[in-house]
Structure formats: structure tokens, C-alpha cells
């Protein structure tokens, strides 16, 4: 099994399609909310001219959640969109990844999510690559 950092699994869970995460988690352990799922926004920033100072581009919706599973681990999630179940499930996975069942959770949930994401990305990249063009400049009559 390859290693995955907490930062990476949290990002993967944040980007995961809600229905896929739900399908991969038919059962959940009991958990107590330290912060029930809450919908809010994050101000997305860009950089002037791509490399300069920051500016405020606009907000995006994000749902966050913090909970504690029975074995004591605290799970945390900030996920894109407004789906409270998504945030709760992501927080549960985050907590479980800190337990002894981490390798099962990794294999059963994170690996399929990562593979599906990689497939979606490479299919889109392959479609874009098929539209790569070579432009030629032609000598026009009046330029002779």
C-alpha cells in the first residue's frame, strides 16, 4: 500500500463526487459532532498577472464538519459545495484514517476515489490533447 498524507486524503475527499463517497461508505461508525456540518464560503484569491500580489476573485461554497468517533480520534473536513452528508462522511474517513483500520479505509474508499479521479482527469486531458493544433503562417500574395 502506498503512503498517503493527511493533507492528500483530505483534498481527495473534498474533491470527491458526493454520490461516489456515499456509495463507498455503506456503513459509518458512531460519531459525535464537535462541529455539526456547516455550510459557508471561502473567498478564492488569484494573483495579479498570475504571479503578482493577491486579489479577491470571488467566493465558493464549502461545507465543514468536525466530529469524534467512539475510539477518540477527531475527524475534520472542509469539502466543496453544500452537501452536509459529504462533509460528515469526509470527516468520518479522516478520523478512521487515524486508527488501526487506516489501511482498510485507504483500500476501500481512498484508492477507488483516487483512481476514478485520475481516470476522469486523463480522459479530459486526452480529449483536450486531440484538439492540439499546429498553426502555419503563410506568405500571402501581397507580401511578395
Amino acid at each position, binding site marked *: 500500500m502506498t503512503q498517503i498524507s493527511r493533507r492528500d486524503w483530505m483534498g481527495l475527499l473534498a474533491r470527491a463526487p458526493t454520490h461516489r463517497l456515499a456509495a463507498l461508505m455503506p456503513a459509518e461508525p458512531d460519531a459525535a459532532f464537535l462541529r455539526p456540518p456547516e455550510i459557508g464560503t471561502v473567498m*478564492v484569491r488569484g494573483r*495579479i498577472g498570475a504571479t503578482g500580489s*493577491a*486579489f479577491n*476573485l470571488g467566493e465558493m461554497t464549502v461545507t465543514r464538519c468536525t466530529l469524534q468517533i467512539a475510539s477518540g480520534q477527531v475527524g475534520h473536513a472542509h469539502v*466543496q459545495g453544500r452537501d452536509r452528508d459529504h462533509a460528515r462522511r469526509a470527516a468520518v474517513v479522516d478520523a478512521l484514517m487515524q486508527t488501526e483500520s487506516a489501511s482498510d479505509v485507504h483500500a476501500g474508499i481512498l484508492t477507488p476515489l483516487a483512481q476514478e479521479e485520475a481516470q476522469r482527469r486523463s480522459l*479530459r486531458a*486526452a480529449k*483536450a490533447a486531440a484538439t492540439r493544433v499546429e498553426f502555419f503562417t503563410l506568405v500571402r500574395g501581397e507580401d511578395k
Partner: protein
Amino acid sequence: MYVAVKGGERAIDNAHAFLAEERRGDPAIPELGTAQIREQLRLSVNRVMAEGSLYDPDLAALGIKQSRGDLIEAVFLIRAYRTTLPRFGASRPVDTGKMTCTRRISATFKDAPGGQILGPTFDYTHRLLDFKLLADGQTPPAAATAPANESPLPHITGFLDRDGLIQPETGNAETPPDLTREPMELPAPRALRLQALTRGDEGFILSLAYSTQRGYGRTHAFVGELRIGTVAVEMEIPELGFAVEVGEIELTECETVNQFTGSKTEPPQFTRGYGLTFGQTERKAIAMSLVDRALRWRELGEDDTGAPAQDEEFVLMHADNVQATGFLEHIKLPHYVDFQSELELIRKLRTEAIAARTEAAE
């Protein structure tokens, strides 16, 4: 002065019920789902997200459905909803250099390193109505694929920058101003201008940009690079003490290469305009970069030619379509007391004028 009126509750309720019925249209026609809007009217969704200043395709689709396709009304609904949400924080500035591009073109370098990728574009279509789309249920054949290099594509202006041919774009780590939190003060720094432009009305920004091309504040813009694709959004989470990705969004970025400046001490250099917008919204991003460049006349030591696109107050105070439509449309609401006083005034003036004329004639 606006004086409130009372009454009309039943008429208003009935008008809203009538609106709901008209929104639905002919019940014999299947109802449009928000998922259909999100997937099949994606460029409308993108525009509502950009001008609503909130990236959430499902909400934008709902706004479009509720507003019967009136995109400015949909933007208004999104802005109103946004004010009900807490803000958890601000992201790290997104790194567009790491964008996964579905489109990337340059009008200045045909052999751009990384290549030119057309992506899903209307460019080079014939703009003929496609009557095949009138027929039901045709799923188009899958788009062609080709081996892709998934490494990030370098910014094309980076090559000019390396050779010192373009004004460098360096910054500081200051917290940028936010016009949704503090009233806009003029003169506005470039960061604030870009925030106002990216959420500004596409039609207004387009017309201003077009005016610069026609000579009102000309800046000789070339599209150095236009790229569309997805970027990761990262935010520091204080509880964790590190930054995590909270999602992934689609952006359009336009970098223009414009006429040079130079001085006794600095050799001539190209200058830049910048556009960055939510979603695939390239007309808006290109227009934004032209208007951004026109507004930079002061810092680049250019003349104020009096062109509208150079007038920061004119541009920034009129770019927001929610503000504009709010003030414009309020004049159709009851102004009976206002108008009554105007009516009395004009009657008095007329009586005086007629009396004066009669007196002169006598």
C-alpha cells in the same frame, strides 16, 4: 425621496402565483431540471457564477431556473443567498501555472511551448444553426482522444519575462482589499479593480473593452495567452495547522501583451493586462484584461485621453449589474408622493408662465 406605500397584498400574491405558472410554461412540456441546466446550459451557469461572485454550479442552475433564464435576476438571487452564509476564510492565491488546461491558445506565439489546445470552443464553427439539435435524444459520438502530456503548461508571458521584454509582475504578501467587506474607495488599487471587473457585468466590460480597441484609450492588446481549466483551491485550516485543498474550480485566464512603455532609465518593454474569471467565460476574461490594462494608464505614465475605459470611477461604479439593475428598476415602483410634488410644481410654473405671457400681451 421614496415614500412607502401600503396595500395590494392580494394582487401581489396573485401576481406571484401567475409568475410561478408562467415560469413552468406549458405543463405538457417536461419540466426542466436544474441538473439539465447545470450540464447543458453550462455557459449561462458560468456567467451567473462569475457575476454572482459565488462558485457553485448547482446554485447558479437553480437561480437560472427560478429567474426564468433572466441571468441578471439569477445573479441577484446568488448574491442575496451569498450574504446568508458565513465565510470560513480566504484561500491561498490559486496557482494558474498548475492549471489542468482544457483550452490554451496564444495569439502571439504559434509555437508556444506546450502547444496550442483548442478545447471545446465555438471558434472556427460556421455559426450556422444546427437543425440536428431540434431532433430529440441524440447523444453525440464521444470526442476524439490523443496521448496527453499531463505536466503543467508554462505561462507564455513567462518567456517574455525571462528575456526582460515584458513588465515583470511581482507582488507582496499583503491581504488584498475586499469590496464585499468595505465600501470601494477611489482611487482603487489594482487588486480592488480586478475584483470589481471579474464580478462586473459581461456586457458592460465587453463594450468598454471594445471601445479601447476602437480608439477610446487604445492599448494595442494581443492575447498573449488564454487558458481554461481547473485549479485546486487550498486554504489554511487553523485547527490543523496546515493547508488543505477544499475543492477544485474551473477558471478562465487571459494575459494580454500590450504596447510598450519605456523611459530614460528603462528600455522599452511590453506591458500587461490581466483577466481571471470563474468557469469557461473567455469573452469576459479577454474583455477584463483589456479594461484592466486601460485603467493602468496612471501607473504606466500614459496620458489620460478622457476615454471612458480610462475613467476608474466611471468603470468601477457602473460595472456591477446588481447595483445597476436595482437602481434602474426601482423607478418603476410606486413613486406617487414624489410625483405628486413634481406635478404640483409644474402646475404652479405653468400658471405663472401663462399669467406672465398674458400680461405681456396686454
